[in-house]
């Protein structure tokens, strides 16, 4: 099981968190086409490589945060709280 570095709680078992995955920007609900909206809802790049993905610390501090993870190796880069800059929080455990 992955060890996911919550910026508040520290590294936690992935089962302690909820995976929200790759996030897409939300289109303008007034002007978007069905294609745009459904791309936001359903389509993901699912890369084999580096991915910025979001997690929710659902059994801990309830923070939403993103991490950059290599989907093939599981390697992590610095976690980023939404709104904060990369590198503003503490390091990963690899």
């Amino acid at each position, binding site marked *: *099981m*992955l*060890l996911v*570095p919550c910026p508040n*709680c*520290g*590294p936690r*078992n992935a089962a302690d968190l*909820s995976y*929200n995955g790759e*996030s897409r920007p*939300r289109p303008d*609900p*007034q002007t*978007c086409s*069905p294609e745009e*909206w459904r791309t*936001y*809802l359903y389509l993901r790049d699912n890369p084999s490589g580096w991915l910025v993905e*979001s997690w*929710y610390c*659902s059994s801990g501090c*309830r*923070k*939403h945060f993103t991490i950059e993870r290599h989907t093939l190796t*599981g390697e992590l880069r610095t976690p980023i709280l*939404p*709104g904060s800059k990369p590198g503003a929080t*503490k*390091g*990963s*455990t*690899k």
Partner: protein
Amino acid sequence: MNHRLPPADGEVLDRTKALTFTWNGKKLEGFEGDTITSALMANGHHIIGRSMKYHRPRGVLTADFWDPNTTVQVGDEPNVRASHRKLEAGMQVVAQNVWPSLSFDIKAANGLVGRFLTAGFYYKTFMKPAALWPRYEHVLAKFAPGGEVDLDTPHGRYDKRFAHPDVVVAGGGPAGLSAAIAAAEAGSSVMLVEHEHHVGGHLLWGTEEDRARVADLTAAALAAGVEILTNSTVTGRYEDNWIAILQRNHPGVVERLIKARAKTLVVAAGTIERPYVFEGNDLPGVMTSGAVRRLITMYGVKPGKQAVVFSANESGEAAIDDLRRAGVSIARVVDALTGERIVSTKGSKKRVKEVLLEDGAKIKCDLVVTAVGWTTPTSLLNMAGDRPVYDADAARFFPSGAPDNVLATGGMVGDGSLDDLIEHGRVTGELAAGRAAVVRHRLQVATARAETVDEAEPGYLADERTPLDRWPHPELFRASTHGIVDYSEDVSSKDLYSAAAEGFDSVELIKRFTTATMGPSQGKLETVNTVAVLAQARGDSIGDVGTTVWRPPYAPISLGALAGRINEPTRLSVIQPWHEANGATPILAGQWVRPDHYGDPLSEVRNTRENVGIIDVTPLGKLDLQGPDVANLLSLLYTNKWMQLPIGSVRYGIMCAEDGVVLDDGVTARLDEEHYLMTTTSSGAARIWSWIEMWLQTERPEWQVHVTPVTTGLTSINIAGPKSRALLGRLTDIDLDNEAFPYMRVRQGLIAGIEQCIAWRIGFTGELSYEIHVPSGHGLAVWERLLAEGADLGVKPFGLEAQRIMRLEKGHFIVGQDTDGLSKAPVTGLDPLLKFDKDDWAGLPEVRWSLESGDHPVIVACQPDDRSIVPEEAAQILRSGTTEIVGRITSSRMSPTLERSICLAQVSKEFADAGTSLEVLLVDGRRITATVIEHHAHFDPEGERLRG
């Protein structure tokens, strides 16, 4: 027949403790320390089971955990590994997979008449015709291997443990022990896991000096604080060194699953001796050299009288010495290193009798011992990403490289003297501890507040270990004849040849087609021989064929161990003890234990409609929302308008997910300028809290809203019925006059002497009703006061069932019951609540498109024309006279108020108009008709009662 040797150094038996057990009903004796098979063999029983497909007699092959054909039934426990399980007094051991008896098995005839169970048999024979499947199943069931499950067996207790060791060492041989000691002495917390009953690995059946080394190593390990787990298996390695360990000998439980987060994993799994493939290699009496060495030295069992030993290595040489010491005469040593080869064996139905050699010699014997080389059990390394590489000179696979936090040592990575292995283990242990220290430091930094971790990160250790040698070994896999490759699955080398000829010539394909390596030993004995035979069949090298991917588990895990204890917490309202004491029938609703009813839900409905009833609705999700942007938040999450909700008012809303599907509904009250109380469905409480956090944190981080879940902080009671005003009026200072406190308003005040209570008027039951929320410490007291003060008004408690009936009479839908995961907001029929003149709300575009297309089902209320029939919930609604499904009943009850059956249904739009006749298919096949009514409400559609 006594095959027990005199007591000798090295045996693990306690001969002062004789244990009586039965074998197929016959009383036998063994000693404490025996395995089931060693006790059986000591008593002269060498056929332990029958093979799976051909029902050939099988005996001991390896005499350890991986022994493929020694699974037995012990009492009510099937599939016990008899060569691993320790004997216990009173065990009733029965052979599996035999009929009518072990020595005469009728199904064995199939093996003699013809090999109709060829490779791919299951695929080919039972594909067609489909109509015959039931008959096939009937025939196959008789041949099914395995023991008998007793459905009355009491549930065993299983457990789980979470562990956070610095280093886990898988394998308790000399290298593993040495690694564990070195890691522990370097400051790591270490868990050493050995899947046999004793640590020591191959030293256990070695010399006296070997065992002295084991004693020293064990003492050193314990002194260094290593936690030693025997009869436990590391079954899997997952991301970030999440290690699954199955512990089979923890007191008080059948098995325990340890979930360990190791900072470094050391794999020291040793090697497994390979069987040799030749005609008759599965006859009882054909064994590996390790098997006879274990039987003689550890268990004091004489494995035969006259042996032929086919030896290519030091293990064969040592077996010869052991056999001589045990008084077994050596009929012939077939020296593989000088080019001598076994061709085939002949035997009776019960045992090997003769060996044919390549030079033409025929030698009488009752024991054939093979020492033809080693398999590296690289599973755990493979799970970490290692891909083993074949070394033809050493005739075995070696690991090629795993992540930095997984290290291999011992026989898996090379050969050497005992000192070499111990030294390699020691250096590996130090490396493991050094790397673990780095991870530990990083974890501390990431977890703790910055000021508490001040030391610098330890330096990262590079792997500078001197590799072990690789000793040359002849490639010995198959003789000139065909024999069994997979003993547990009865797959022969001939089967593999024909499968390859049919085109299943990749190792992954042939595995699935023939089921080779897929039995209980999971390829530990079979994989390399399978690969080697396939390479021969293809005319290729073993390296080119490659090996299959090893996946978890390394050894079988029972479902009980995976499940662990039943550990599902339930939630209780503070009033629940009162409910139980007053005859409530409990029902589990989500996580909540609630009163379903107090004996008669129909009379609870009648009393509420006539007098007054109270229901404990504490499980209702409650979120306290405060801040300047609450109205914005509500406006974004609900489909309707919230910006102008006056203080003191309550409003109902529905929420959609971004795909437009109804997510939740409920009422929210504005208590003050920037203070609201939101209610959600009981099951949606946690989900909606997360939903709100998601919007506030990711999409609208600039909004200022503070969310506090108060579901259990407040006890909620709904007081419903025409006399509810009279009842509440006796307990509160809140002005309940209809003008002062009308429908859909909220008030705060004193209730039953408790300050800061909240009361609002809503109408889920359709009656005049007040829902009160009191601090939960006072919940029970308020409940009891209501009952006491209202006795003359006829107040009675009502349960969930009565509430469900009343809400159905009123036509209120329930999210998740009357809607499902495809029901977008327009399905509810609450179009006035969908406000498209708002800029944004969750799910807005999908709801708009759904409404525009008009192509969605709708919820309608309908009434069966036969008022006594209550259709089952989920009963299909069909286009009349056809099988076309046009809807379904979503809620259905007998209404005590209307004295008729009433329903909610989801139907295609063309069936939604009032007066439409619906054809409902009941579960028993009858079709009945029901008529759509004008409103959702079956009762009081104008809502006069609740506004009164």
